[in-house]
């Protein structure tokens, strides 16, 4: 498929020049090879005096899935198991987890290393050193320990791909066009939403319950609570959260705790039936946190 990519006006204008004056030296084309999923950047190299081609292989030809786990042992221990589905065409080699505070413990799977957060980028990055997650395989052991409550986070993954390599110093228009391609999210990484450490400062049980309600809504919209009959489950969960909030408003913390425990029981009953692990962990962990704040 030959495409004129409207990445920017710059590219559009250059292509327009190309159409008017095909021999213009800075003319270039960017084609997406549907068979390989690679972009072919073709241009006239002034350095080499001939037409050349650079191949950009997006590191997104992976099919990741993630199974989270959260335990509480004085701190929250977040663990992830990654799957690279059989339809993937690249090994999965990069996994990024956004964080809030620097974890006290970071664990790596064998053959992987982790890069901690920096002052400018609050992420933990696991990078394959010896072992990759090949298509139709999985790997566990990605884990951090932190004090932050679970929230919804965007996990990013990259496949093993050759870097975009030009045979020369590309003209600025070509270089910036290639850069624009690389900076498109769909060409840079694959994103999955899951449960992970989030920013939350507890001040009031009512606000904490509001946050739990929001997570429940988000779980529904993201399809983490799913399937026929899930509407009834959602209504039931909503009723329990409403009752808990009303009890908190009346100062009846014990009644609120009862409602939240009932909420957890229903989550447990529906785990892997009408809701997945991500929703279960997100909602259960936050409900348990509120119960703990409501006192004995």
């Amino acid at each position: 498929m030959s495409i004129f990519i409207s990445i920017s006006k710059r590219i559009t204008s250059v292509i327009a020049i190309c159409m008017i004056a095909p021999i213009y030296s800075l003319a270039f084309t960017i084609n997406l090879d549907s068979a390989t999923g690679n972009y072919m950047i073709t241009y006239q190299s002034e350095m080499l005096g001939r037409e050349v081609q650079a191949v950009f292989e997006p590191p997104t030809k992976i099919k990741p899935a993630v199974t989270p786990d959260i335990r509480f042992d004085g701190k929250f221990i977040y663990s992830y198991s990654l799957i690279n589905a059989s339809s993937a065409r690249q090994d999965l080699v990069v996994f990024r987890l956004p964080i809030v505070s620097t974890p006290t413990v970071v664990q790596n799977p064998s053959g992987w290393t982790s890069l901690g957060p920096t002052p400018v980028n609050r992420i933990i990055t696991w990078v394959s050193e010896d072992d990759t997650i090949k298509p139709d395989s999985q790997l566990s052991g990605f884990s951090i320990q932190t004090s932050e409550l679970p929230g919804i986070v965007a996990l990013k993954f990259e496949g093993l791909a050759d870097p975009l390599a030009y045979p020369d110093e590309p003209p600025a228009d070509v270089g910036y066009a290639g850069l624009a391609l690389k900076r498109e999210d769909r060409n840079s990484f694959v994103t999955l939403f899951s449960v992970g450490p989030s920013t939350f400062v507890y001040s009031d049980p009512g606000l904490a319950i509001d946050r739990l309600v929001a997570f429940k809504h988000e779980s529904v919209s993201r399809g983490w609570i799913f399937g026929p009959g899930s509407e009834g489950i959602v209504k039931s969960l909503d009723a329990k959260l409403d009752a808990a909030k009303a009890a908190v408003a009346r100062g009846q913390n014990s009644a609120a705790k009862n409602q939240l425990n009932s909420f957890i029981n229903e989550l447990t009953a529906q785990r892997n039936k009408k809701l997945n692990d991500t929703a279960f962990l997100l909602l259960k962990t936050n409900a348990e946190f509120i119960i703990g704040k409501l006192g004995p």
Partner: protein
Amino acid sequence: MRPTLACALILLAVQSSISQATEPPPARQRQTTYPFSASGGGLTDLQVSPSGSAYVAGVTSTQGPFISRVGPDGSLSWLIYESGSPLAAGFQGGLSVDSDDNVYRIYTDYTSIFGEIVVVKYSSAGVRLQETRPASSNPGSAIIANGLTLDPARGNLYASMDFLDTNFETAVLVVQLNLNLVESARNVYRGQTPGIPESSLGAHVVGGIHISASGKASVSVREQDQATGYVQTRSLFLRYDTGLVNRVEEFLPPSVLLGTTQSEPVGGMFGVIFPSVPTFPPSFPVYQQVAPTFGPQRPAPGGLIGVGPQAETYWRRGSRQIQKIAASGNTVWSTPIVTDAGKDEAEYARVSNSALFLAGGFIASGQRRVYLDRYGQATDSLSVVLEPAGVAPGAKTQVQVTLKDSQGNPVADRDVTFAAEPVANSGGHDHGGSRPAGAFSGSNILFSSPPHGRTGPDGKLAAIYTASKFGGQEKIIVHVTTAPSISTSTLLEVKVPGLVLLPGSANYGKVGGTSFHLGPPDSAVDHNHYGATDVISILPSIAIDYAARFPSRSVIQYNDISLPSGGLFDVGGQWLPPHDTHRTGREVDIRSSPPHANAVPSRGRDFIKFSEIVMRWAENARIEVHSRGTPHEHIHIYF
């Protein structure tokens, strides 16, 4: 007419018009109109001092002789009326100015019936310092003051005059004075036309007195028979030796008669000779007559009014036109006198270092007035302002030009030419070659080469300048198209703002300097490691991070980033790409492996690991490889 002939004539006409004006005429900058009026009188001399001030002397019919000073800016400093009767109207009296701006003046004091010659010295402030009356001891006294010329090399002053000898015959007297007006020598010539009895012969000095470079005085004289109605009998030059002791009489042919006029020293000749058939312009050294006064003795149209330091002459043409003629005889310019209401002809033209002064008279409300005009020759001033004064490479700035005269008044409708010159070696380009400049544009700019346009009524002209793609300095030069000496310039900083130098560190190396763009490792001067502040701030962290993750490899070697002012980084020193990026301090080259052993890996999972290290510090950074498979292969990072 055959086409070729027509073309030839047109070409001839064009050439002729070109030869008619080789520089623009000066513009009037200031007019001084003297605060007196009279029914008669006139100017007797105009001189300029080395400081650029002008002295005007004359006589009014109501208040007698006057002298005045006009400052370099054209404003009237002072005006002094000499003592004496106003009867002197129409008679001459020269001026001379020394290097201290003192002015010497000779005039006739008509307090007595025959008058008395007075030589006086004034300071530049108008203080009367000394005076002398060199002819007062003669029985018949003097009647007509004439010339006064300074010999600056010897500190002598020479005065010429007519006086009445013992028999009431007019004789020529020349005296030598020092600068305190003490007389040291004199010489009298009584005339000797054959066949005319001495009792009837009068000798009159004509024009001023000329002093040669060797300090010898000369005057021109006409002799006339007073018994037959003052008919001229013959003309001659008197050439004196130093000290006025010896005198040579050089008679002119009988057909050549001297007019009653001022004279100008030109090439050793002086006096004014009018041939039987006047020509204009004249052939050097024969000049047409010019009368010294206005009013009843108003000069006829056309005449010499001044001589400049390069032997150029200034002529009055018609009633309101002046013309400058070079010593070669070519017309330099011709221009109308600025005509205020009632203005009459210019009578004197004098040139100072920076101005042309024209003095003359006019009649207003039936009264005679005197004016002095200052004409600038190169004193109009251009100013240029850039808004903004600095731009990024390839960006635009407005060039605002203002043309004013010396008094600060806007000068409209003048053509101004624009030019731009890149400053050599600016912006970190340590190489020569044909460095491109930017380009001018604008609705008021004509794009013929060079670009130019005309000033508006406010003296302003605006253009748009698009800077070159290269960082550095570009000199914006403007000048009045027809007067290149009226010029100014300003520097435009073509610069990506905020670029800072990557400091040296043991945690990384810096490489990539060349003779075209100096830098490490071979030069202590570093022109190739300038980057945006945020980029420069994280490169050390990336290097430390990298060293921790790849302990067995060499430290990062940072290659080209950007030049100090940014812009196109012509790595080959040819003012051309490659390195088409690297313009804004946001692209960084890093030595890679291959081709450099132990450098940053440019392939496989180690490359990905390095990429992730970079993105830990700059999430939006993107990394690629340039010149893959060549000896110049390297990693290129966009931040």
